[in-house]
């Protein structure tokens, strides 16, 4: 009555299949690494150092770092509540709102730039109110952050939504039946448990922010971020000048991302 199993048959065959599959991942990794390596190794350290000394580059680097951090923070602060709400919304609303949330990704940069200008441009309602209060919504750090947030925040929302949905609802009930209200439960149980997904979203948002060009250049050509600086360098002096700046950008981004992932691990670990 007990069906026997041909247990070890073709074990080696199958194991190979897994390797073959993983090979695909290796191909993709190469597709990222090779162009980057060519970017890196084609430049002399000298050229890079030279660019670093350029005050315009230094100031662009600061601007980029500050605004990308701010944008990632804004995306997180505003995006997590939206994600949480979406995660608990029912099917139809969820599908539709999710589609709306990713639309900023769909819009080509020129369109996002334009529609943002129609919302926060100097002649608009919001733009004028802000200007009256001494805040410029374009051509300012705020402008950069507005542009980056528009483009990058969907990552936080979509990824965090999936992460929230993955949290066992029993644990949330357990917390609440211990007398903790929904906010406390969210803060101390749901959020930490969803954290890996959220962190992935913040990482993406930060990376996208620091690399954002299209919408930023429309909303805030000044103060210049690194991508704008790279573009200007490229337009004025060509590849040879632009690439070292790109290398600097990559360096900054890698450092920031490593810090983000390292710090980001703590909330879970503690």
């Amino acid at each position, binding site marked *: 009555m007990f069906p026997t199993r041909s247990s070890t048959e073709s074990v080696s065959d199958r194991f190979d299949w897994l390797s073959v599959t993983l090979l695909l991942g290796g191909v993709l990794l190469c597709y990222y690494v090779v162009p980057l390596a060519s970017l890196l190794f084609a430049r002399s350290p000298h050229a890079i150092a030279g660019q670093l000394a350029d005050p315009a580059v230094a100031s662009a680097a600061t601007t980029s770092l500050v605004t990308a951090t701010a944008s990632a923070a804004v995306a997180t602060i505003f995006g997590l509540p939206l994600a949480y709400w979406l995660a608990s919304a029912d099917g139809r609303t969820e599908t539709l709102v999710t589609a709306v949330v990713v639309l900023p990704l769909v819009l080509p940069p020129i369109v996002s730039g334009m529609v943002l200008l129609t919302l926060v441009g100097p002649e608009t309602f919001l733009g004028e109110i802000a200007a009256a209060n001494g805040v410029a919504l374009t051509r300012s750090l705020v402008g950069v952050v507005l542009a980056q947030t528009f483009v990058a925040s969907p990552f936080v929302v979509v990824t965090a939504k999936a992460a929230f949905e993955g949290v*066992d609802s*029993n*644990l949330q*009930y*357990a*917390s*609440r*039946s*211990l*007398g*903790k*209200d*929904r906010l406390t*439960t969210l803060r*101390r*149980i749901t959020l*930490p*448990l969803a954290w890996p997904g959220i962190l992935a979203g913040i990482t993406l948002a930060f990376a996208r922010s620091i690399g954002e060009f299209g919408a930023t250049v429309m909303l805030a050509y000044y103060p210049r971020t690194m991508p704008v600086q790279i573009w200007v360098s490229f337009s004025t002096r060509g590849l040879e000048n632009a690439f070292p700046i790109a290398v600097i950008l990559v360096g900054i981004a890698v450092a920031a991302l490593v810090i983000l992932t390292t710090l980001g691990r703590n909330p*879970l670990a503690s």
Partner: protein
Amino acid sequence: MMVTITDLSVRRGDFSFGPLDLSISNEVFCVLGPSGSGKSTLLSILAGIVEPDRGEILIGGESVRGRPPETRSTGLVFQDGALFPHLTARENVEYAAEDPDYVRKLTRLLAVDEVLDRRPAMLSGGERQRVALARTLAAGPDVLLLDEPLSSLDEPIRRRLRDDLHRLFATLDVPVVYVTHDQRTATALADRLGILRDGRLEQVDTPTSVLERPNSRFVAEFTGNENVFEVGLETGRCGRVARLGDALLRVTAEGDSIERLLAGVDGSTATVCAHPSRITVLERSDGSVDAVRSVDSEESGRDLRMSADESSFRIPVTIERWLHEGDTYRVFVQVDGGPELTATMSRRTFDRLELARGDERTVSIQTESMHVLDPPTSSRT
């Protein structure tokens, strides 16, 4: 504090729970019932995790319908523990508690003070269960809802905790609803015992009453009164007799035990139950002539035997098989011309009896150990 449930019901997929009415004061109310009978569902409803379709729940006189779990002050120990995986055992307990001394006390009581710095994934099954219990107790709820909190523990520690919980519940003085599948725990802890079946309470009473006077075949079988059988009532050559298989018991004077037992029965049969420990397999010598008298049956012409002693049935049986269950033996016997019965006995007795398969023996059931069930409900499948 008082928990009052009125006309409560809910559907979950194919399963329909209730309607159920119940009122629990500051006592330990144990819920016993087969797997899938709705025990966890009941606790979930009380804790506010499952919203009932109908009915009312009052806690301390206030309706809690629609109120979120966090405002009910009901502490629930989930069947699977539901420990927070990102917190250590200690943090899990402290999450709920405000008083570090009390936390220390509880974790020592539950013998988990050594593993407090581990994450749930690094705890054993039983450790996890005890941490979950500590966490809920630490929250100091007004109503305690425990879903099989000791099921993954070995007998010695379970026994110890059972005693400790007993004392703790007494100090807490809150309503406790305690779901368990362990009869010993239920009888040891419960002030009252409810038997749940298919989402309905089949019987609610003190443990002793439920165990000794089950009100249905289901409760009888479920609480271990495995021997449920029909006793026939006949008026034969020797006067009025009760009959079980080929054994007869004379009903003599008013007020004697069998008369008392069968008092409320009308009709020609009664369904009777008896706990296996109340069935005694007699030594070979005891099944003797002076205890049993042969009579022949009028109808069947079979050889029947009448118990000489009118306070206990003496029943001729064949030994079928037995199981060794730790400190007891469970012996299955076939009543000649009647049902199969189960008798439990200590190892000592078992050894003395020197049973063998196919042996013809006599068992005795004291009439006062038997209990007449209400008209039979359909038996559990």
